[in-house]
């Protein structure tokens, strides 16, 4: 299918988005039982009668889960329900132990809020929040034997219920209108801001690559000037910031193509493909889908006292947008520089690198230079690069100690990213340390003078600028490991020239 261009799509249509984000809370135990939520355990080792949905088992609400939900609600400027209930969402799936999900329906814990997000040019866009509600995660299905890992074509499926019952908060926006051509950017900025917020609240690590935060992008188009929303598609499990933007953009172009062609959009779920940024059709969502919600009779209503809510409100941390303004001041950055740090998702890595002992300018230099470039090239989030802030800080320290120069430091970073281990181990293994030992450098300097007699003469005649060429030659023979300043001194000394 040939898609109409993004610009052409926007010339005719106005996008309306709805974003649904699921956040796995970082509680120690599951939402309705005492099982561990630790990732990476042996399949089905973190289960009990309750999270396996065995006959006779009953749920008990995790108080920390409720507290986290209220904190998220407050940070999103929501009203907190004085009284709310869980509800059963009835549907079948083999990885759902009870064949109903304990969730919330018409009585969410938090509702009617907003989140202000900053776009790349600094403009603030307000995304209104419909609700934030508590629910439990399902187990995980692995489909074996097929080419794509999807159920289609698989010979059998394996079920792991370790994830079943892990607390989730689902955060649903109201329809996002008026973003126009910037809709994909708004979507990305919203998810990014939400992620920062969740992390600042310390209720989840919100790692999208680990599935701790998952986004569904609902999108529809309507011709300019029309009020009625078009039919929406629901692109499920879009799991990186970049993908959120790409998915929104692709769906805008796809919808426009269908509509321009006189076709109609089918209400369906869609799968997003990281490889090419496209989406393909999932299941049709017609009105036959009926979850038969009803209040969960195994749980009693939740009625958070106003005192508790106010206590939690008072304990909220500095919110990310305000914190960013503060950091910009502390780091002495221009609006533009701060914005590029934000766009790159570098605030947290830089902060953590500073916390690990690096100077602010050095920390920013690495994350915004080498690492940002790599993140762009690979299409992965900066924070998810295979290097830790502590490792970056260690490289900075080695430079400060004179053990590495800029070029060598770059090689060390690359080696760490390639999985060769800690910075010190890389220096050791690759023999990358700066050479400033005169005896080791002497031979290289002599060789450079001998091979470049004409240049040496120029220097002797007082043309000191020519020394750079000889330094370059030495650096070349020492593969960049020489201490450049010391090399220059040695050359001048050997040529009997005063600097």
């Amino acid at each position, binding site marked *: 299918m040939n898609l109409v261009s993004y610009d052409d799509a926007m010339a005719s249509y106005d996008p309306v988005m709805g974003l649904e984000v699921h956040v796995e809370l970082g509680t120690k135990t599951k939402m309705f039982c005492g099982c561990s939520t630790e990732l990476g355990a042996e399949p089905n080792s973190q289960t009990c*009668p309750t999270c*396996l*949905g*065995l*006959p*006779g*088992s*009953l*749920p*008990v*609400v995790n108080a920390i889960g409720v507290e986290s939900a209220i904190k998220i609600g407050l940070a999103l400027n929501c009203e907190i329900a004085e009284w709310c209930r869980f509800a*059963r969402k*009835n549907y*079948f799936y*083999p990885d759902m*132990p*009870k*064949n*109903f999900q304990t969730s919330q329906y018409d009585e969410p814990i938090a509702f009617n809020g907003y989140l202000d997000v900053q776009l790349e040019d600094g403009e603030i866009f307000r995304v209104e929040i419909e609700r934030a509600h508590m629910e439990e995660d399902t187990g995980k299905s692995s489909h074996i034997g097929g080419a794509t890992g999807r159920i289609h074509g698989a010979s059998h*499926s394996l*079920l792991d219920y370790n994830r079943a019952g892990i607390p989730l908060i689902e955060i649903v926006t109201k329809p996002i209108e008026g973003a126009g051509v910037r809709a994909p950017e708004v979507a990305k900025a919203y998810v990014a801001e939400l992620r920062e917020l969740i992390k600042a609240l310390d209720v989840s690590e919100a790692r999208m690559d680990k599935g701790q935060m998952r986004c569904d992008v609902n999108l529809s188009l309507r011709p300019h000037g029309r009020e009625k929303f078009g039919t929406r598609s629901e692109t499920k499990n879009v799991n990186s910031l970049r993908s959120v933007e790409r998915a929104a953009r692709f769906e805008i172009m796809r919808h426009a193509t269908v509509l321009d062609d006189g076709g109609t959009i089918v209400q369906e779920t869609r799968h997003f493909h990281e490889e090419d940024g496209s989406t393909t059709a999932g299941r049709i969502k017609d009105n036959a889908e*009926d979850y*038969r*919600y*009803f209040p969960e*009779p*195994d*749980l*009693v209503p939740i009625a958070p006292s106003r005192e508790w809510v106010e206590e939690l409100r008072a304990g909220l941390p500095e919110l990310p947008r305000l914190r960013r303004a503060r950091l910009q001041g502390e780091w002495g950055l221009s609006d533009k520089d701060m914005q590029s740090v934000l766009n790159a998702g570098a605030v947290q890595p830089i902060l953590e690198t500073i916390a690990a002992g690096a100077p602010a300018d050095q920390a920013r230099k690495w994350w915004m230079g080498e690492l940002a470039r790599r993140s762009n090239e690979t299409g992965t989030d900066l924070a998810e690069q295979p290097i830790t802030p502590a490792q970056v800080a260690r490289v900075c320290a080695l430079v400060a100690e004179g053990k590495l120069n800029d070029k060598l430091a770059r090689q060390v970073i690359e080696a760490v990213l390639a999985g060769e281990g800690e910075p010190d181990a890389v220096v050791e293994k690759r023999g990358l340390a700066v050479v400033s030992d005169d005896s080791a450098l002497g031979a290289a300097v002599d060789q450079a003078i001998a091979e470049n007699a004409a240049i040496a003469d120029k220097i002797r005649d007082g043309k000191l600028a020519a020394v750079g060429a000889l330094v370059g030659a030495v650096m070349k023979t020492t593969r960049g490991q020489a201490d450049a300043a010391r090399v220059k001194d040695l050359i001048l000394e050997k040529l009997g020239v005063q600097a």
Partner: protein
Amino acid sequence: MTDLIRSTAAETAAAIASGQVSAVEVTQAHLDRIEAVDKKVNAFLHVDTEGALGAARAVDEKRARGEKLGPLAGVPLALKDVFTTKGIPTTCGSKILEGWIPPYDATVTSRLKDAGVVILGKTNMDEFAMGSSTENSAYGPTGNPWDLSRIPGGSGGGSAAALAAYQAPLAIGTDTGGSIRQPGAITGTVGVKPTYGSVSRYGLVAFSSSLDQGGPCARTVLDAALLHEAIAGHDPMDSTSIDAPVPAVVEAAKRRDIRGMRIGVVKEFAGEGYQAGVMQRFNESVELLRELGAEVVEISCPSFLLAMPAYYLIAPSEASSNLARFDAMRYGLRVGDDGTRSAEDVTALTREAGFGAEVKRRIILGTYALSSGYYDAYYGSAQKVRTLISRDFDAAFAGVDVLVSPTTPTTAFPIGERADDPLAMYLADLCTIPSNLAGNAAMSLPCGLAPEDNLPVGLQIIAPAMADDRLYRVGGAVEAALNDKWGHTLLEEAPAL
């Protein structure tokens, strides 16, 4: 002790504690009785001979060490097969759970074990507790020890029949719409539905979560009270469990004095459909209450007439969700898994084979009632009726201490008679359902034989939530007066098996 199987639980416990008889002897006597009569009665789905004798030995050893025994230590009990038992099959009377061995004990199960009660085995029941005759069991009907061609009531027919057939002096039932009380009435035994939330539901395989309540079954009011105290009380594993002290039911059962109590007769529970002999014995009981010094008044609770339709929307709705987990994926029966079929087809074939007709009927009914577009009219309206019923109870209890009615409109009917007429079957729970909808406490105890068929009639007593002790106070007094009048217990009139 002269008769190991006909003694009350209180007598047996005292005899064991004093060393007059060992718990092993008592247990063996009951196992022998089961062996002798259960082929006829079919009260048990599973008899745990080893486990029972082991538990009895543990009690005897404890006594030998000079440790203090609990009030029911060493007394045998029949457990309804709807409670999970670690390592012992739990089927809920359904084929779909055939072969499932639970990895955990229900709270009721573990409290019984902790009390030194000897669990003899698991008793027959209507599949998933859906029924009033135990005919809906996938493992064949249970016979009523008064007349084996008749039903023992349901869903807990196995537990009630085990008591009436002297296979156990104690039993546990569950009561969602009358499944403890109606079998109690039908078999001439005592059954109590405690206040909702006072006995933990953890490990009770759910039929209708907002209505299900486990409770004691026994041959005497005092035995029921002793069992009530053993199993009731707050459980952090059940969020709907009440965190408050259990009313002093044993003390109340021993009091035998109801002078000055105010008792209401529910006007709506009479008339068409009520067997003449049932009403005769009920009216005599009301007269007896007056003679014992209670003040009796007539009370009208008009919304009780709406209880049946409301119940048959709420219970199936919750059941349709609770039973969704039986999908052949993780435990129990699996049909058609030959490597060629999809998971969905295997689930469908398993349910087709594994669920009985009544269960399927209620799943379909409940699924429909919860459907979008019907929810408000059905489930929503039923919840409103529930509120009205609670208000009728509140108004009644503002003027009286307890209410009384017949437990069930008729005596035991012949097996097969109502099997194809679900509406006729549902009428058996007409008088018991309101208490489930309101969550209060109710008891059934024997009040005589209907003259026309010589079958037991039950008197129902209803008390406000958390006033379970009033049931035992009234029940204990009525039981003592009737036994005095008859010169023996009612059950002694039952034919020998």
